[in-house]
């Protein structure tokens, strides 16, 4: 039983962590929390099943196409739902525009793809029992993403430009950094990370349109607990959440597990609204 908890817990945790990172990448690029993170995860699974299982493409080709689709949707998100409302003084509008866009994609998927969970193809034929690839693929994807982001932010010029516009928007623009293009690129990157989460986790989650709201919420918990913009916090939070959820599933059963997760989430947030890794809100006057 313990191996099951750990295997499933880490796998789900990795997926949640990746969605959390998706939120963070979008947030650091635009100071906007987008409702599209869960939708991207869902699409990773659905498009993966579509390309590989329905259309019969080889796994690698399917992965590449899925990543491309994720990047494209990320860019569309930025252009349609984020850029127009950043200019407005009304802070709340981005919540609505990203929510509306996420709902559109979700409903479209439900109607055109299916309202029932569809099977996701078996990607590799490795692993017995708890070492089956369906459990460690999400972990591998998470690890690869973290390493990739580290290299990007620390070693490449583009990555450092990302960090610059996140740190101090005005200064970065004053230095001549193309803020708009960098933001688009960030959203494309977030799009790819989001669909990767869904793709790597497809065998565990299946290709199901209702994964979107589920991932939206459970992917947000690591961000809230780990601190906005903190990828390290998102990873730790994600794994903690995955393990806690599976342990609760085993010990008390499904319904009370989600109640337990939610109660813990609310209590932690009320005690520390900025999360464990975040900074307290700065001067507001």
């Amino acid at each position: 039983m313990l191996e099951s908890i750990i295997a499933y817990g880490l796998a789900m945790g990795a997926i949640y962590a990746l969605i959390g990172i998706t939120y963070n990448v979008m947030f650091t690029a635009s100071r906007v929390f987008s409702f599209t993170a869960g939708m991207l995860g869902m699409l990773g699974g659905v498009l993966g099943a579509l390309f590989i299982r329905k259309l019969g493409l080889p796994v690698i080709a399917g992965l590449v196409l899925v990543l491309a689709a994720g990047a494209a949707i990320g860019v569309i998100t930025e252009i349609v739902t984020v850029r127009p409302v950043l200019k407005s003084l009304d802070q709340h509008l981005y919540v609505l525009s990203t929510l509306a866009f996420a709902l559109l994609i979700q409903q479209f998927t439900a109607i055109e793809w299916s309202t029932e969970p569809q099977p996701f193809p078996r990607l590799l034929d490795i692993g017995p029992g708890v070492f089956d690839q369906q459990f460690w693929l999400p972990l591998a994807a998470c690890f690869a993403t973290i390493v990739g982001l580290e290299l990007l932010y620390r070693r490449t010029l583009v990555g450092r430009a990302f960090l610059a516009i996140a740190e101090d928007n005005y200064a970065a623009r004053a230095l001549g950094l193309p803020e708009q293009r960098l933001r688009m690129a960030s959203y494309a990157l977030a799009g790819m990370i989001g669909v990767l989460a869904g793709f790597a986790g497809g065998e565990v989650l299946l290709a199901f349109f209702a994964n979107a709201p589920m991932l939206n919420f459970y992917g947000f918990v690591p961000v809230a607990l780990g601190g906005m913009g903190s990828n390290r916090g998102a990873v730790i939070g994600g794994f903690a959440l995955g393990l806690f959820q599976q342990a609760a599933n085993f010990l008390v059963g499904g319904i009370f597990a989600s109640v337990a997760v939610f109660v813990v989430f609310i209590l932690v947030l009320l005690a520390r609204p900025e999360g464990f890794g975040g900074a307290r809100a700065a001067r507001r006057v």
Partner: protein
Amino acid sequence: MTDTRLATTAVPVGENPPRVAARLEALWPYLAIGAAAVALPLTGDTYWGIIATRACIYWILVAGLNLVVGFAGQIAIGWVALLTLGAYTASVLTAGTATPALPPFAALIVAGVAGAIFGLVVGLPALRLRTFYFAMTTLGFATIVTQIALAWQSVTGGGIGVPGPEFPGWFSTPWGFYYLCLALAAICTWMTANIAASRFGRSLIAVRDAEVAAEAFGIFRPTLLLTVFLFSGAVAGVAGGMFASLQSYITPDAFTFDLSVLFFIAILIGGRGSIIGPMLGTIILTVLPEFAAPLVAWSTFLYAALLLLIVLLIPGGIADLIDFKNRRPLERHREIAPRPEMIGPLIGHTAAAKSLTLENIALSFGGVRAIDGLDLEVRPGEVHGLIGPNGSGKTTTLNVISGYYAPDHGALRLGGDTLAPGGAHLRAGRRIARTFQTPRLIGAASVLENVMIGGTIDGHASFAESLLTLPRHRRDERVLRDAAMATLTAVGLEPLAGVRADRLQHSELRFMEIARALMLRPDFLMLDEPAAGLSAEEIKRLGTLIVAITRAGPGVLLVEHHADLIFDICDHVTVLNLGKILAAGTPSEIRSHREVVSAYLGA
């Protein structure tokens, strides 16, 4: 935009007949819809009766939620949780599965109470959490409630569900039930419209759009938010009970996320700060899918598309679309003509002879010493100028006096009383008013409504009294409106009283902020760079106005960069540099002070 159209037809004080016309102009959409709704049974079509009943029930919930989302600006997406709670409470109580069976109307009341309590619980995180975080917690609540309904089989019937309440006598016929729902919907409309046209409605919008300013005028966000969550929850609970009755049998799968989305989107499509907008939104979203069978499957997709279009193209929603009054062009060359002679009677009392003193105030932000040992005394009846280079701590000083920051050490005194170091919302009660460096106003509200915010703490009516538009509420409103019009006239902005604040020029906004501050009949008025962006002529008029204010009794603390204005009207001047006092004295002393000239004024 708010629905206080009664208040926004710039009617000069004392003229009564046009008020009636104004009232009718505001009421006609409600009357038209109401008439159509009452006449519906004449068509004999009970299918449309069911749809209309459903729209009424949804509107009951949305009317309450409107105060939370549209007025308070909280992103409460998961409100279906309260519908579920209300539905199950009413059904379980009438079915008698957990308690002895109650009569349906009693069960409905209990459902309302349960909704109120749960509304409070769901709303509590809003006091601590940011927008997006709070939205997520409401989604979490929605899931939890459905899970509990599924799990608690012995009471809720689990997946099989329970029969809904059945109302007695005529109310159990299709049209009888429809009229019951219609009556409840009408009552909710009336109540929420009353709140909208009260200081609570204005305060909610102030908290939404200009939170910092709201605090300065005594509006305490936590109590206000909790009150509307309580009310909204109660109303949603009642709606839930009616919903269960309409369905005749409820199971957890009837309370879908789609329904939550419908409620939320109806408000946004209708327009925030409006009553008629969300009402139209609810009706449209309920009725739309019934017009074509294929539309039903795509309904949530269409709602989302509508929402996206509204957000991108008409953020103000339907309410904005039908706001014809605010499309009328304004006069191009407007002048602000204050009437200083009106200030005296406006302020009304002579301030008690107490000074506002700061003793050795120090405040650091991280490693930066923003204020480093500041002593200041503002005496009643005097204009005290506070000048200095940028970053010298002028605005920070005002913010400490306002109570936004607690100083690291030092004391703040009003006469003999020590003022609490933090506690920004308590300053208004002490009759300390201020304006802001960048005007902080409610763009969507009219100039008159913005100014009325200043008089919020002088209202006596409670939330319940405003809800039911009892005499004390009506008196409050009348007094407040008259005072606001008088203040606007004094400040020279009365022709613009009914205009949306975001259509005003920058200089007019500065005078509007002063009018708002004067509504407090302050003992002390703090002005933060009021001359910034004004023309030379306007600065002169501003000066005359400030002097007139001090003649009437209050002391004024004037933070400014315009040296001419400072030296013209100030009785005392304090110069700050790097958080410390560089010099203090009369204007002539300061003008020739060597260090001041070199650090700030220039040769």
